[in-house]
């Protein structure tokens, strides 16, 4: 039963990674920038989730508000950080992004305190027997449902709406898309909104699973999400999803079986390095 249990835990962790990595992949596909500050948006989502839930008593309201606000902040981050640097080499934007990430971690610490916040009455703590003798809390089930729901929504948008088609065209060839009448700026703002809102949702979900938000909670997911989009083949959404789930499962087994050699976070990077040596373009080549 341990195997199955680990598999389920890994897939749930993978679902969270997928929500964070989606925004990074969208940004990379459009701008070819490694958007480290994305993790600050994840943290912001967590804080909004806890604070709104504690003040209003409604977790649903908190989740929606977190997605909306974080989405808007994400759009602002494009306007303030990346848009002025578009003509420069991506390295410049990367360092600027890291600077913003460091500064915002400190902002969280200064504004909300170093020890983090918790839910007064953590919602969705009940347990549910999904398989004989395997229990999952409602919070974990919510993670799975929300991840599948949001990611399929994006898949549907990408195929069935004008915006989605235009976005895919822009990723493929920005100049051709622009000359066919696509407003590239609109696509960028929309992608930042969606990607950031998803990171915000992931932040709320993680705050729920750990019943804790703290200033540094974004650090590790952010580096791992970078590893994931690279594993997935940079810019390939399908690759990123596959890599998220694979990494979640590998970490879950790895911590048990090779945990005495490597800590959890370096298992992810060992996996990354091995895959890249075998397939330098990532798991799925973008095309």
């Amino acid at each position, binding site marked *: 039963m341990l195997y199955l249990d680990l598999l389920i835990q890994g897939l749930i962790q993978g679902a969270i990674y997928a929500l964070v990595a989606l925004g990074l992949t969208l940004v*990379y596909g459009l701008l*070819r920038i*490694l958007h480290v500050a994305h993790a600050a948006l994840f943290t912001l989502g967590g804080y909004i989730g806890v604070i709104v839930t504690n003040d209003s008593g409604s977790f649903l309201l908190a989740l929606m508000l977190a997605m909306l606000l974080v989405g808007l902040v994400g759009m602002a981050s494009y306007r303030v*950080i990346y848009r*002025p*640097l578009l003509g*420069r080499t*991506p*390295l*410049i*934007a*990367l*360092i*600027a992004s*890291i*600077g*913003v*990430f*460091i*500064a*915002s*971690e*400190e*902002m969280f610490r*200064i504004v909300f305190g170093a020890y983090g916040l918790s839910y007064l009455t953590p919602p969705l703590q009940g347990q549910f027997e999904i398989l004989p003798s395997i229990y999952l809390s409602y919070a974990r089930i919510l993670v799975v449902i929300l991840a599948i729901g949001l990611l399929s929504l994006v898949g549907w948008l990408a195929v069935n709406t004008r915006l989605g088609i235009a976005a895919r065209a822009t990723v493929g060839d920005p100049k051709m898309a622009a000359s066919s009448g696509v407003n590239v700026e609109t696509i960028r703002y929309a992608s930042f909104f969606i990607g950031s809102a998803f990171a915000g949702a992931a932040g709320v979900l993680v705050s729920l699973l750990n019943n804790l938000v703290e200033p540094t909670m974004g650090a590790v997911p952010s*580096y791992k999400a*970078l*590893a994931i989009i*690279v594993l997935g083949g*940079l810019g390939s959404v399908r690759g990123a999803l596959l890599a998220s789930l694979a990494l979640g499962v590998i970490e879950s087994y790895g911590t048990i079986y090779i945990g*005495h*050699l*490597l*800590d959890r*976070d*370096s*298992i*992810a*990077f*060992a996996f*990354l*390095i091995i895959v*890249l*040596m075998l397939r*330098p*373009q*990532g798991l799925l080549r973008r095309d």
Partner: protein
Amino acid sequence: MDYEIVVLTNMAIGILFALSLNVITGFCGQVSLGHAAFLGIGAYTSAILTKAGWPLVATFLPAMAMAALVGLVVGMASLRVRHDFLAITTMGVVFLFTGIVRKQDFLGGEIGIAGIPAPDFGRPGLLVMALACVLLYLIFTIRIRKSWAGFAYDSIAEDEDTARLLGVNVPRFKLFAFVAGTAGAGLAGALYAHQVRFIGPDSFGFVESISVLAMVIVGGIGSIWGVILAAAALSALPQFFQIIDDFKLLVYGLLLFGAMRFAPDGVDGLLRRLFQRGTAP
């Protein structure tokens, strides 16, 4: 006086560390987000040896060799993966390094290595030694820059495929840059270990890797003098920030962002612009 010596030694180590990354990122154009791992390898090697009774100077070579050995492996990876893929691979290297160190008892695990012996020649002696190392490494990098290899590196940094087409032996130059750069970081690490006399996995993480990359970029990628200026300023900064201790990292982060946003060519570009404005008719 002691305080000034500590600040100056930190600056010298910072400059050496930044110059070593400048060979990889500045000259050869290979972005490394994990350079602190090599500082760490040098520091751990040197600390273990001096604790076993070796004199500090004798540990320099082993420290450089260990760092360069791992650097060679990462350099080989750079032949296979490129650009952003390489950047993230090097980021993986630093996480892997701290992850491995944390779990090894003979490296002190989470706690690290304490009680590293003070160098026999005292703090002023360590400063002199650090300055000598900086000077030697500086001469070494200037010689690369001024030689034929300097042009070859420029062409690789600009466009690898074209360089290959022109007959530049790209793999050999890349491997050399990685070996020379990581050996320099290993040397800086040996000095660092005996400056602070306590090392742990947290001293060589991702943030430290970013700080040194920031020195190179703020200095102006590839510019030796710009990098020295930026490294001296950025490694002394934390000391000046003591007054605003609580906001130290906040200011640092905003500075990084501001520097990229308003002076993306770094100190080098700023000086150049000033100079040109002065001479233009």
